């Protein structure tokens, strides 16, 4: 059976199961006699076993089975011993390794040694192997029950009431195989061309072929078949079946249904006439995402509305009716905003998807360092774009590792907390450990030649703390195996900034440490503020704009060589964006438009020529050589075709403070 198309699904689902197992084992370590926990863990191992076995991943299946056996023993004895916890975690590590092998297309690593090793619960487990399985461990898997709209996505004529038309096309879940359903609806729908190949060496191919045809009859109406049933009965080779099926099911559902049948080696399902792209499993990258079907329905509806809206716009344009055009454009905007919102939702995943391995990490680190560390995770449900979560996983591990290794002294709590703030997702890692002393950091920074003594003295504590994010910085007195606080912080910082986010560090002696990541919710489509500067239009992500204002030249004061602005009793440095970019600029006069942004936790005013307004734009990444300049993070095309660079004040100013002082304007 060709299972390769399910590989992606297998990998992502198994990953989730392993994360759940990790969580359950750690919970059982605290509460070893939790029967429900043991049952749940058993079910997880059982699921992994079943999936791996059906994929033909022998070692994985064997190992999962082995763990399942141990757990069955636990169900009998009613508890999980401490030694078994370690054993299970060891097994889990091995399973994770196997999954890595499979993801990398390598042969599975050897599990024989683990399987033959004495197990802490051996006697009970051996007896338990013959115990009945919890019925809860069984869940439907083989029948495609995912209802989704038929692929004939014709535009609904009335945008206000498109639901009934589409709802009609949602097929009933396939009837259980035990019931011979001969629904009259089964024949309606699209016509699919199927090619089914039986496995080489299949026993009784004729009987198998007839069974497959019978099963297909439950999915729809068979239009023809080659060879015919009669030919199969008379001994015609039935190793390869070609047929047409009229069905209300999607090609993917049919494909899945057939692929799970016994002895089917290969199945190909092609819709007749149309070239329908099936939503899952065709990814070259092997990435899959599960999408709620109601969301898919919503897409169809919105697409229908867009099409309708387009025709109404065309009509309004033909009739040269400006008022119709305007109102229709507004309607168009609403639909697009709605579509955007829903598309983003597909990409959104809870933070939970990357915090799964943290409990285990903290446990192991605490054990190794002999500390008592409690991990609290708050706000796991906060959702972020998949791409951001993927990039965030490693930095988060770094931060938590640092907190345990270097924040906590003997015992303490590490908290990972997430919440939403306007268009940003905030993720912070807190510890209630010894904290960092700005004085120590100043001294170390000078010792390491990162800053001069005078510079160090002149820096505010807040800026001093950011020095730990310089490559190679460490404040740990003794460099441990994972090295001191600071190693990896430069990686964390650049990862966060790469995502368009900001990292903030807050700490003090005895106050613990707080690492805050302010992240955008999405990457591709963002809101920008358009500004004009020396005759050029530039964009700045609104997440980087604290406020905009116009100040009178007379309100701008001088402090030494620095121009400053009074904002809420604070003197905020005022810089000319033209100057920073190396563009010609006239001295301030009259009313000066200012964008207030934040750089390293400090407010900075950027004087521009004009504030144009906000736009929602699709950001394109810059390629070489344009990506060489840290200040320009991307570009977008405006409605009139102009290309606008998107600049990041923080990058821009850090670049400027650094040794490389090349003006960005030359590149743009």
């Amino acid at each position, binding site marked *: 059976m060709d299972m390769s198309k399910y590989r992606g699904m297998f990998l992502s689902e198994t990953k989730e199961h392993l994360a759940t197992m990790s969580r359950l084992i750690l919970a059982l370590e605290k509460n070893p006699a939790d029967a429900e926990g043991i049952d749940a863990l058993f079910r997880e191992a*059982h*699921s992994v*076993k*079943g*999936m791996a*076995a*059906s994929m033909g991943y022998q070692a994985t299946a064997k190992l999962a089975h082995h763990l399942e056996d141990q757990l069955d023993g636990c169900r009998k004895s009613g508890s999980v011993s401490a030694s078994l916890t370690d054993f299970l975690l060891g097994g889990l590590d091995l399973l994770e390794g196997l999954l890595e092998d499979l993801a990398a297309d390598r042969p599975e690593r050897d599990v024989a040694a683990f399987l033959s090793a004495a197990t802490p619960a051996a006697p009970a487990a051996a007896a338990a*192997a*013959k*115990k*009945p*399985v*919890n*019925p809860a*461990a*069984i*869940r*439907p*898997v*083989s*029948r495609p029950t995912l209802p989704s709209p038929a692929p004939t996505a014709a535009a609904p004529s009335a945008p206000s009431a498109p639901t009934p038309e589409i709802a009609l096309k949602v097929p009933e879940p396939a009837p*259980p*195989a*035990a*019931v*011979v359903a001969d629904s009259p609806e089964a024949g309606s729908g699209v016509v699919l061309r199927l090619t089914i190949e039986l496995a080489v060496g299949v*026993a*009784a*191919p*004729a*009987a198998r072929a*007839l*069974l497959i045809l*019978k099963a297909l009859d439950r999915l729809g109406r068979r239009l023809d078949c080659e060879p015919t049933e009669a030919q199969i*009965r008379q001994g015609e080779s039935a190793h390869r079946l070609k047929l047409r099926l009229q069905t209300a099911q999607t090609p993917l559902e049919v494909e899945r249904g057939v692929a*799970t*049948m*016994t002895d089917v080696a290969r199945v190909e399902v092609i819709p007749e006439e149309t070239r329908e792209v099936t939503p899952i499993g065709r990814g070259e990258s092997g990435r899959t995402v599960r999408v709620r079907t109601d969301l898919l329905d919503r897409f169809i509806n919105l697409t229908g509305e867009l099409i309708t809206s387009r025709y109404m716009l065309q009509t309004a344009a033909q009739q040269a009716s400006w008022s119709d055009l305007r109102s229709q454009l507004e309607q168009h905007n609403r639909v697009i905003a709605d579509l955007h919102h829903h598309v983003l939702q597909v990409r959104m995943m809870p933070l939970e998807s990357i915090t799964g391995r943290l409990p285990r990490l903290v446990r192991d680190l605490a054990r190794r360092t002999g500390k008592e560390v409690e991990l609290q995770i708050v706000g796991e449900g906060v959702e972020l774009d998949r791409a951001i979560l993927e990039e965030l996983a490693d930095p988060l591990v770094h931060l938590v590792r640092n907190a345990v290794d270097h924040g906590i002294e003997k015992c303490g709590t590490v908290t990972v907390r997430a919440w939403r703030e306007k268009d940003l997702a905030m993720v912070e890692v807190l510890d209630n450990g010894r904290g960092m002393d700005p004085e120590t950091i100043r001294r170390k920074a000078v010792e390491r030649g990162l800053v001069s003594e005078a510079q160090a003295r002149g820096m505010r504590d807040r800026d001093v703390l950011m020095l730990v994010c310089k490559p190679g910085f460490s404040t740990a007195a003794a460099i441990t195996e994972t090295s001191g606080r600071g190693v990896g912080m430069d990686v964390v910082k650049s990862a966060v900034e790469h995502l368009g986010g900001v990292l903030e560090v807050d700490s003090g002696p005895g106050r613990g440490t707080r690492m805050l990541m302010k992240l955008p919710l999405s990457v591709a489509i963002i809101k920008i503020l358009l500004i004009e500067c020396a005759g050029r239009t530039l964009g700045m992500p609104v997440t980087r704009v604290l406020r905009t204002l116009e100040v009178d030249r007379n309100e701008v004061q001088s402090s030494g060589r620095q121009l400053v602005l009074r904002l809420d009793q604070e003197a905020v440095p005022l810089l000319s964006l033209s100057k920073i970019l190396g563009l010609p600029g006239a001295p301030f006069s009259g009313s000066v438009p200012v964008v207030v942004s934040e750089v390293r936790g400090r407010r900075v005013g950027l004087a521009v020529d004009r504030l144009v307004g906000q736009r929602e734009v699709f950001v394109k990444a810059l390629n070489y050589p344009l990506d060489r300049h840290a200040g320009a993070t991307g570009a977008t095309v405006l409605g009139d075709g102009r290309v606008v660079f998107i600049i990041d004040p923080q990058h821009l100013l850090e670049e400027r403070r650094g040794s490389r002082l090349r003006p960005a304007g030359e590149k743009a």
Partner: protein
Amino acid sequence: MKPRVLIVDDALFMRNMLRDIFTRGGFEVVGEAGDGEEAVTRFQELRPDLVTLDIVMPKVSGLQALVQIMAIDPEACIVMCSALGQEALILEAVEGGARDFIIKPFREPQVLAIAQRLCGVGA
């Protein structure tokens, strides 16, 4: 609720083996029969969700038992058990309403996969 299985085979060894496979796989083996006649009687009283039926058996054969059981309940879910080289008999059984077949020697995953699919449950 666990799916209920009736195992029919004249060899005790095969019955035991199937019993273990089904038990491990989360099924409840509600009964066993050693020949076709007993199979029909047991089916009558137990009304199982699934019957595994050996083709070659003493007294009443598997094929005859299949016909009789299908007469009692046309919706009966019957899986034929057979050794290699009995293609014709299997084909006849499928025509007669058997839902699937398994070939000896039994491979646990395959047996369970078939049984689970027929009973609408998954591993």
